[in-house]
């Protein structure tokens, strides 16, 4: 055994011993979390493994027989135009949704941090959209945008801006915007509250020092607020990206993925293929791809934003 190998062996033994000692020292803690861990494996681990397994089988809606097809579903997906259209529509939905929620959330947080009259009221009021069940908010927005019964069209007609009602959710070119507006309305309060918490943790001294040095408000925001908020923004946008990516109820309630599937995202398509049409194998394959995409995004996002040794 070479010296290097011997050192490695010694190092491994040492680490094993440390691990064993750690487990022994914290045995009680491990025992206490064991039931939760078992539960987690049962309700999270099993469905995930089952999804991976299912993606390798063909299981039509009108049969109980599953046929092993290997990676055929994946081949079909990557060879279909639908997949790339879904990728584009999902990316558009997530990018615009998260950007909208982040910018509006930041704007609201900055203003709520200031010494404005009725601050407590506004802080509570801005939380309301987040507290309403998503499906209900979606129904409200669907009615607001309804071409015949909606407030939006009623107001525009009253003002003489339009001559007949516009069916935003029925227009293949703009329907997704009609849905994304609802999603931004729902998701902005969460971002605002997170950013507000982050803003309140920034030491006031920094602003005072900058003011003495003659920094204007924009420069204070640019060079103090944003850098200090970086880790909070990173975390919030990551969570928002995941939630927006897997968001189902808003789109489904407002448009069902239409018209002509222009508001369908990967998650909507998974539901349609797997559960509505009963093709569980293909739906599972789409699910696996969606999961891997999210994982890839998270890794790349973290690498880019923590480049240079910065921590979260």
């Amino acid at each position: 055994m070479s010296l290097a190998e011997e050192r490695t062996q010694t190092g491994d033994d040492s680490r094993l011993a440390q691990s064993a000692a750690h487990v022994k020292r914290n045995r009680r803690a491990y025992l206490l979390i064991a039931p939760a861990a078992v539960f987690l494996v049962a309700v999270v681990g099993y469905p995930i493994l089952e999804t991976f397994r299912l993606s390798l089988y063909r299981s039509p809606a009108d049969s109980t027989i599953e046929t092993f097809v290997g990676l055929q579903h994946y081949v079909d997906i990557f060879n279909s135009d639908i997949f790339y259209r879904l990728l584009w529509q999902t990316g558009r939905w997530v990018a615009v949704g998260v950007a909208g929620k982040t910018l509006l959330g930041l704007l609201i947080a900055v203003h709520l941090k200031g010494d404005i009259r009725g601050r407590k009221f506004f802080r509570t009021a801005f939380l309301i959209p987040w507290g309403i069940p998503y499906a209900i908010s979606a129904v409200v927005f669907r009615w607001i945008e309804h071409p015949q019964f909606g407030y939006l069209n009623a107001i525009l007609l009253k003002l003489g801006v339009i001559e007949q009602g516009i069916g935003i959710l029925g227009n293949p070119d703009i329907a997704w915007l009609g849905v994304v507006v609802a999603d931004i309305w729902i998701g902005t309060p969460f971002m605002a509250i997170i950013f507000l918490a982050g803003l309140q943790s920034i030491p006031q001294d920094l602003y005072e020092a900058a003011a003495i040095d003659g920094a204007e408000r924009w420069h204070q925001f640019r060079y103090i607020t944003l850098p200090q908020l970086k880790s909070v923004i990173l975390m919030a946008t990551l969570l928002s990206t995941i939630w927006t990516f897997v968001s189902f109820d808003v789109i489904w309630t407002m448009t069902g993925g239409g018209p002509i599937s222009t508001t369908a995202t990967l998650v909507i398509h998974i539901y349609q293929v797997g559960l509505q049409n009963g093709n569980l194998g293909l739906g599972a394959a789409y699910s696996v791809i969606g999961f891997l995409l999210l994982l890839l995004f998270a890794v790349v996002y973290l690498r880019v934003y923590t480049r240079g040794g910065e921590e979260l």
Partner: protein
Amino acid sequence: MWAQLVAMMRENTTEEASGQTLDRRRLLQALGAGGMIAVAGCTGGGDGSESGSDGEGSGESGDDTQSVQLLTMGVGDNIKQFFEENNAAFESEYDVDVEFTSVTWDNARQTVNNRVDGGQAPDVSRWPARWIPQLVGKDALEPVDDLMDGEFGEKFAEGVANGTMYNGSHYGVPWAASNKCLYYNKDAFEAAGLDPETPALDTWEDMLAAAKALTESDEVNIPALGLAGADAIETGSQYYHYHWSHGADLVDDEGMPVVNSDGAVEALSFYTDLHLEHGVTQSSPLSSTRQDIRQLFENGDLGMVIGHVYTGLNITESQENGEVDFDYGIVQVPEGPAGRYSLFTIDTLGIFSQSEHKDVARDLIRFYFDEERRFQYSKQKGFLPVVEAVGEREYFSESKNWGPFVEAGQYARARPKLSNFSQFNDRMVQAIQEALADQKSPQKALNDAQSDLEDAMN
């Protein structure tokens, strides 16, 4: 609280400067859990609101009283009391607990399939006849030939009874039937100078001419015609009237798609031209479900719409309550070059193979098919009577609302029984939308649909 949380997050960040890899791993673990939502979303479960009621299964309740599960769909206020009273009566008469569940139609198919797949099928459930092949393919439905071939089966007209047959067996008892007619707003017709009592609405061209007259009239300020185009199953069922009456089919004798015939292209062209060329429809048909256009008509805000009998019943009730004040008429769905068709739908009441209480399930079915109960059901719910003796009652023949629908029985046509009809219909709706949005010509939209359907069904 959030401030403290974020401050803690920031403190941990600076304290663990040497633990970058570990931080990432922890975060990725958390992300993984979030991302799994997308993965886990496909492993069944479905509608959470349903799962709670799925768990019990059928069986004996604690006090040894036998129980039977009855699942149905779309129980609104107009029929809720009917089920409550009759379930209670059955419980009392048979000493059996009825576990009654109602789901929305949007969730119906998924709910039943989830319960079947999970081994928790109800004992008895309502189920559209066109979806029977899908459940039969899973061996989920129990043949009820013993009921339908005996004295009980003689209650039904032959055509109705045959609607529950698949592969030579009855897989349910006819529970409800519906068909369509064309409603028109008499006040609007009169204002536009059209004959409100015997309007010329015999053919599609007649309907178009009337719609143009309504649209061009300065005295009428409501859209002339309701056109369904939203991404919903009913868009297909509204359109098929045009499709069939132009000599087009959906599938051939072998069950293969034939949706792009010349007749089909003519039909879809006519359908889309109503909006794109003639402009006689409500604005934005692509946003409108069948329910939207029905609601517009029931409010007096639409000139014509193809609808069920309950549209008339709803308007009559609103008139009695003083909520609307307009008169309406009902005529047959217009005729096309190849005839006249009224979409006919039969729902069945079926027994599931997994049921351990098939005898009680049969008792429940016999109970609900008492003639008086069937009369009350049809009258309150607004579905065509499936029991012949009920249909012969004067109430139906003398009613302004029911008469045209009874007459429309001769034009009845059902959608094909396909195991993947939902997928088939979705693709047809997409073609309709593509043509209505002027993204594709009717020919191209139907050719693409034909190609996709062939791939899906091969």
